[in-house]
């Protein structure tokens, strides 16, 4: 296939394309879901195809096919060129930031290939974890799932790049749903909405200790049925690392996507308040807040060797010591600012064009322990585990719900819990109220496998390195 794609590049050059690239991708996926100690679903998916992108006199065209005979691939190339020609007459031109050609290979750093772990071992682990959760009588539904993906990509372009990558993804999680006559509550581990993910192997799942955490998860779901809701008001809060991942994702990751800034996502995902006039001028957060985009973290879900435009994975600052200093960029948008791409162009599969996506967007660790953060609060809450998220189309007004809130009184966790906690605010006010971030010992790169963007919609896997952080005077609870 590589030779065919190289032929396609030569062909498109001969037809006048200013630039072209092609990706052949193979995706292998295995999903296991166990419910109440019974196997609910088991699936294996093999999907492969080619996507060809052409730039012609300032206009883009893209054609993708899973019909892989030489004639069909060449037909796709012709179609991509035809589409690009049609676009060029309705485009004001496209600048494209320079990038040197790369010839390289990359492989995710895994120890144990999950596809070689016996299926029975994986199913048994989830059966035991869900069985343990079902021991709690209030728990009506106990679900465990595992997802494994092996992605092979070959990328070539008309500039001479030739890159092969093997990305391995492993993810797993458990959930307990407890129900009473009038209510139901949920607790998840280690992360909600499908669990935690990484570009690592089976060892990542083993380290989660799903069975060891199952009893606690069930007990907390059950206890929430009897818990009260927080009286709405302003409180000092600590947010755990998992919820911080969502907070970073929605209020920093998305607004720093330069395609949103330039309006390319207005018709779907929205725009951004972080317009270029604010770059290096806006105080985004307090001095303790520094946020990076870093695709080089070994095992991070947003890690890779090269993005889908052939730009090498790299690390850059989005927020440094509280100042807004950078964007997530691809070659097209970076050129508009006279910059080089920082390697954030990613496509869900061969079916899709690369668009700007998060890599690993990380809130850098601070100097406190979690106990230090809690000890600085007279009365407030530790909010844990994302349950719901919403933010406006410019990424200013946000509202999050978490699964549970733990009461803090006199600098200590009291053991009392509250259900249905909600907090809300405005992005820069909120980040400027941050006065402490926990240290490296509680810092973890959380994997979010389900970030949606683009038309046609693409679902991307991204990472967020976070640790718990403290915020002052945050609005908690919404009066109904």
């Amino acid at each position, binding site marked *: 296939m590589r030779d065919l794609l190289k032929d396609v590049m030569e062909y498109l050059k001969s037809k006048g394309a200013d630039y072209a690239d092609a990706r052949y991708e193979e995706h292998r996926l295995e999903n296991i879901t166990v419910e109440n100690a019974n196997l609910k679903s*088991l699936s*294996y998916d093999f999907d492969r195809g080619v996507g060809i992108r052409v730039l012609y006199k300032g206009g883009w065209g893209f054609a993708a096919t899973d019909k892989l005979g030489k004639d069909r691939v060449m037909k796709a190339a012709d179609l991509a060129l035809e589409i690009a020609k049609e676009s060029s007459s309705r485009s004001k031109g496209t600048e494209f930031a320079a990038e040197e050609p790369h010839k390289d290979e990359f492989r995710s750093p895994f120890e144990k290939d999950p596809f070689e772990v016996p299926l029975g071992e994986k199913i048994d682990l989830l059966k035991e974890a869900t069985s343990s959760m079902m021991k709690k009588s209030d728990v009506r539904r106990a679900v465990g799932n595992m997802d494994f993906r092996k992605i092979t990509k070959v990328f070539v372009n008309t500039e001479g790049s030739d890159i092969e990558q093997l990305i391995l993804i492993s993810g797993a999680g458990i959930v307990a749903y407890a129900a009473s006559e009038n209510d139901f509550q949920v607790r998840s581990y280690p992360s909600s909405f499908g669990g935690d993910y990484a570009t690592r192997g089976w060892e990542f799942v083993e380290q989660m200790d799903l069975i060891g955490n199952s009893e606690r998860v069930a007990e907390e779901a059950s206890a929430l049925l009897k818990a009260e809701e927080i009286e709405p008001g302003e409180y000092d809060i600590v947010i755990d690392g998992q919820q911080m991942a969502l907070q970073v994702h929605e209020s920093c990751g998305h607004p720093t996507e330069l395609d949103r800034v330039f309006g390319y996502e207005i018709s779907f995902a929205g725009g951004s308040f972080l317009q270029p006039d604010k770059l290096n001028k806006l105080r985004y957060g307090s001095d303790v807040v520094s946020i990076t985009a870093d695709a080089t973290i070994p095992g991070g879900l947003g890690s890779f060797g090269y993005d889908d435009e052939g730009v090498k994975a790299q690390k850059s600052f989005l927020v440094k010591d509280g100042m807004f200093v950078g964007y997530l960029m691809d070659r097209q948008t970076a050129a508009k600012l006279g910059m080089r791409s920082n390697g954030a162009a990613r496509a869900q599969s061969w079916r899709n064009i690369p668009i700007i996506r998060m890599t690993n967007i990380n809130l850098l660790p601070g100097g406190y322990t979690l106990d230090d953060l809690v000890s600085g609060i007279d009365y407030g809450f530790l909010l844990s585990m994302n349950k719901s998220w919403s933010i406006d189309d410019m990424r200013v007004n946000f509202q999050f719900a978490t699964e549970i809130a733990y009461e803090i009184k006199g600098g200590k966790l009291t053991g009392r819990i509250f259900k249905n906690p909600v907090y809300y605010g405005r992005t820069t006010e909120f980040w400027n109220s941050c006065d402490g971030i926990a240290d490296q010992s509680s810092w973890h790169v959380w994997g979010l496998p389900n970030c949606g963007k683009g038309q046609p919609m693409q679902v991307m896997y991204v990472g967020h390195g976070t640790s718990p952080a403290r915020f002052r005077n945050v609005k908690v609870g919404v009066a109904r």
Partner: protein
Amino acid sequence: MRGEQFYRGLMRIMNDAFAGYEFLASVSDKKRDLTRFANSEIHQNVSIEGSGLSIMLVKNNKLLVLKSNDFSQAALKSLRERADEMIGHVPELPYKFKMPPLRMTFPFEKADPSMKEVSPSKRAQMFDMVKSKAEEKNLKAFGYIANDFEEDVVMSTSGLFLYATYSAADYNVVMMNDSGGSSYASGFAKSLEELDINEKSSEVAKLASMNIPRAEIEPGEYTVVLGPEAVATMFLYFAYSALNGMAYEMKTSSAVKYLGKKVGPEFLNFSDDPKDERLMGIEFDAVGEERKTLPIIENGEFKSVLYAYGTALRFGKDPTGNTVSLENMDMAFPLNPVVKGGEVSKQDLFNSVNEGIYIHRFHYVNVVDHSELVLTGMTRDGLFLIENGRITKALRNMRFNVSFYDLMRKLKGLSKEQEVISSSVPMVVPYAVFEGFKFTSKTDH
């Protein structure tokens, strides 16, 4: 497209390849072209062709699902080998699985032939029209125009063979003025020619040019008129959170409290209606069950939840024809949702509001509490003050927190006029008036 005979041949090959198993397979082949524009320029323009085979294999009441987009004999042989390797590790189901019953029908040839091959210039010309309507009012245009052509097949070892072709065209359009005020529309039809993009673009241009300057309102309860896009969002979240029969049976759905109860006025009717000609009219679900007209809310009463095939078998219910995929046979969703129109005209509906707010569209809605179906989200692309039945002033966007059920109790009217909108699924919806809609916080724009 491959045509019916190709899939009949594929069925014979699969019968050989998977001998010793019972199977149920869902096969599709699809082409989707999409032209996307922003700042009145085309910036993304794609054509995607792809196929998919999902095959559910059953042996000794053990079940697994394999998927591939490679239909070659070698690929099927490889899948068979994988199945043999996997099935030994699969425990038996806790209930007796049975294949969907035999159904023989004529092919459902529902695609518009003009949609089989659509040139990129066709969509580009439609973009030109949208752009010119925006430029007439000094606005910029954003959005997409897309066309689809697909064939769907469901087949099984028990003799089930269903074949259908469908075509679809859809779009959305945003127009924005220099101060960032915008408006929005979307639409769906079975062909590009039938799309209402021309007339809706005119309405978008009119509303976007009115969306300036924007005043601020305080959080609180207001009488609101919801445009069709906003109404659709509310009902789609109701469908997503409350209609799954599995969650109902497991007591983790708000339907446990509200099914069988009056949740709105007599004139509130919400159904899944594959017979509605304005929608795609999908004939069968992922397991080949016939999609039927299903009243979900009828005369204000919450009548039905949806049973996917697996859930129905497990709990002794009749499947409702809403199974979404073979991989998750507990997932059910209405693919042809229709909110019935009311008795009054859109203008009379507005006239009934002396002082209130018009909400054109919502953004990033999510469920805060599934047990009461509390939803939060933002307004977007047009929030306006209504005075004496007329839109008089543009407002800054607001966040809301409302319970779907509480909101339906406060439903005061639906417009006679319905619109076909393109969301996660196409939907038919009217305008609606509600009292006591709760805005909870402000934003900057």
